C-alpha cells in the first residue's frame, strides 16, 4: 500500500491526526459537558477520516468495508450524542450545573434527593 | 471546445464572481441586516449560475431538473433563514425604529444601528 500513497491521502491522513489530537486536547482541558461532547465528536470524526483514508489510500476502487463501518459509526455517534445531551439536561436539573466537578456536584445531587 | 462548453465555463466563472461578491459583502458591510442583504441575494444568483453551467452540457433532462430543484430549494432555504435571522436580530434590539428617520436618506445614515452604537454600549 505504501508505494501507492498519493499526496491527497497524505493530506487527509495528517488532517485526521490533527483533528483527533485537537479533540483530545480539548477534552482534557474543558470542564463543561457540552464542550466535552463537541470534542468527543471531533475525536470521532478524526477516527472516521483515518479509517476512510487508510481504506482508500491506494489506487483502485475504494474499500467498502471501512465505509460501511464509518456509516454505522456516524449514526451511532449522533445517537450517543443525543443520549449524552439528555443526561446533561437531567444532570442540570438535579445539580443546577453544566459541569462535572466531582465533590461539589455530588453534594448538590444529594441535596436534591434529600428535598 | 464547442460553444456549449464555452457558455458553461462562462456561467461557472460568473457564478464564482457572485459568490466572491457575497463574501466581500459579508466581510465589509457594517451590520447584520446589510450583510444578510448582500449574502442571500448574491449567493443565490451565484448558485443559479453554477447550477446552470453543468445543466447546459447535460444530455438527460432529469439531471438538469435535479439541478433546478436544488436551486429552488436553495432559494427557499435562504429566504426563510434570512427572514428568521433578521427577525431574531430585530427582536434582540439590533435595529432602531425608523420612524424618526427622514424617508429619503442616504444609506449611510439610515442603516440600522451598528454594534458601535446601542447594542454594545448597553451591554457594558
Amino acid at each position, binding site marked *: 500500500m505504501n508505494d501507492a500513497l498519493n499526496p491527497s491521502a497524505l493530506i487527509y491522513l495528517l488532517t485526521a491526526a490533527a483533528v483527533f489530537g485537537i479533540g483530545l486536547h480539548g477534552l482534557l482541558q474543558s470542564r463543561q459537558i457540552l464542550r466535552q461532547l463537541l470534542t468527543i465528536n471531533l475525536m470521532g470524526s478524526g477516527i472516521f477520516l483515518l479509517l476512510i483514508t487508510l481504506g482508500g489510500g491506494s489506487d483502485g476502487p475504494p474499500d467498502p468495508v471501512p465505509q460501511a463501518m464509518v456509516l454505522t459509526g456516524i449514526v451511532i455517534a449522533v445517537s450517543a450524542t443525543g443520549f449524552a445531551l439528555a443526561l446533561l439536561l437531567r444532570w442540570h436539573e438535579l445539580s443546577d450545573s453544566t459541569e462535572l466537578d466531582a465533590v461539589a456536584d455530588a453534594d448538590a445531587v444529594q441535596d436534591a434527593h434529600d428535598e | 471546445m464547442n460553444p456549449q462548453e464555452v457558455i458553461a465555463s462562462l456561467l461557472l466563472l460568473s457564478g464564482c464572481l457572485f459568490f466572491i461578491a457575497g463574501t466581500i459583502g459579508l466581510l465589509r458591510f457594517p451590520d447584520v441586516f446589510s450583510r444578510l442583504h448582500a449574502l442571500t441575494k448574491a449567493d443565490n444568483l451565484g448558485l443559479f449560475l453554477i447550477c446552470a453551467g453543468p445543466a447546459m452540457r447535460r444530455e438527460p433532462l432529469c439531471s438538469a431538473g435535479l439541478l433546478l430543484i436544488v436551486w429552488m430549494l436553495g432559494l*427557499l432555504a435562504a429566504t426563510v433563514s434570512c427572514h428568521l435571522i433578521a427577525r431574531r436580530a430585530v427582536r434582540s434590539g439590533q435595529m432602531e425604529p425608523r420612524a424618526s428617520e427622514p424617508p429619503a436618506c442616504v444609506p449611510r445614515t439610515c442603516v440600522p444601528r451598528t454594534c458601535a452604537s446601542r447594542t454594545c454600549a448597553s451591554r457594558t
Partner: protein
Amino acid sequence: MRAPDMRVPDMRVPDMIGLGIDAVLALAIVWLALQTVRSRDLFKAMLMFVVFGLLMSLAWARLHAPDLALAEAAIGAGITGALLLVTWRRLQADGHEPADSEHPPLPLWLRLPTAGGASMLVASIGWVALELPATPGTAGELAWQRIDDIGVSNPVTAVLLGFRAYDTLLEMAVVLAAWLGARAVAIELRPGALPGPAYAEVPLVGALLSLVVPISILVAVYLLQAGGNAPGGAFQGGAVLAAGGVLLCLTGRLEAAAQTSGLERVLLVLGLVVFSLAGLLVMASGGAMLALPGLWAIYLVETALLLSIAITLVLLFAAAPGLRRAS
C-alpha cells in the same frame, strides 16, 4: 461507485488543482476543529462544529465516499446542529447561562504536550498502517469479488446487509438502547413544546414545512430505492426522514408527550424485529444466519431499518418518551 479518474490528456494540471482543493479543505477542517475547542463562547463553538460537519462532508466527497457524504449531510447539517442548539436553549430556559467555567484553563506547559502527544500518536499509527505491506485478500477486496452473490451493486449496502449484517443488526440495537437510556433519564422532563417562540405567527415557516417535509419523505424513499445500485440506503434515508421530523419538532408542530404511543413502539422495534426474523427464518430453512436470500429481503429489511432509525432519532432529539401533534 468505482472511482473513475479523469482520463484526459491534460491530466496533470487538474490533478494539481485537486490537490489544492484537498489542501484548502484540510486546512479549513483543522482550523475549524481548533476553533471549536478554543473559542470561549460556547455558541460559537457549536456553530464551528456545525460548519466542521459541512466541510467533513466535502472531504468525504473528495475521498470518493458519497455514501458517507450523504449521511454526514443529513446528520451533520441537520440533526446534530439542531440537537446542540436546542440543548443550549433548554439550559437557558431553565435560567442557566451555560457560560464557560470560572476554573482557570490548564497551564500551557500541560496543554501543549497533551495536544502534541495526541497528534503524534495518531500520526504514527497512521504511518505504521501505511507502511504495512499490502496483504492480498482484505475484507474489501473479498467484498468486491463476491458482490454478485448479494445482488446489489452498491458495495457499501452489500457490506452492511450482506457481509457484515451482524454489525448492522447490533448497530440498530445500540441506537435503540441510546433512546431507552435517554427516555429513562428524561422521563421527568416537562412534556410539551420546546421552550422558545411560537412559530404560528411567522408566515414563512408554514411554507417551508409544507415543502421540506414532503420532500424529505420523498428523498428518503428515493435514497432507500437508490441504495441498491448507487450511494444511498437505509441509514441515509432514515437520517433524512428524521431531519424532517426534527424540523416539525423545532417549529412546534410536534411536541413531547408523556407516553410512547402504540405506533411509536411498533416503529421503534420494527427494524430489529424484521431483521432478526429474516435472519432466523433463513437459518431455519438451512442457510447461514442473517444471509438474506435476495434483493426483496434486503429491501424489506432496509425499509424496516429506515423507519426505526428515523423514529429513534426524532425521539432522541425530542428527549421524550413520545410525540404528539401540537394542539
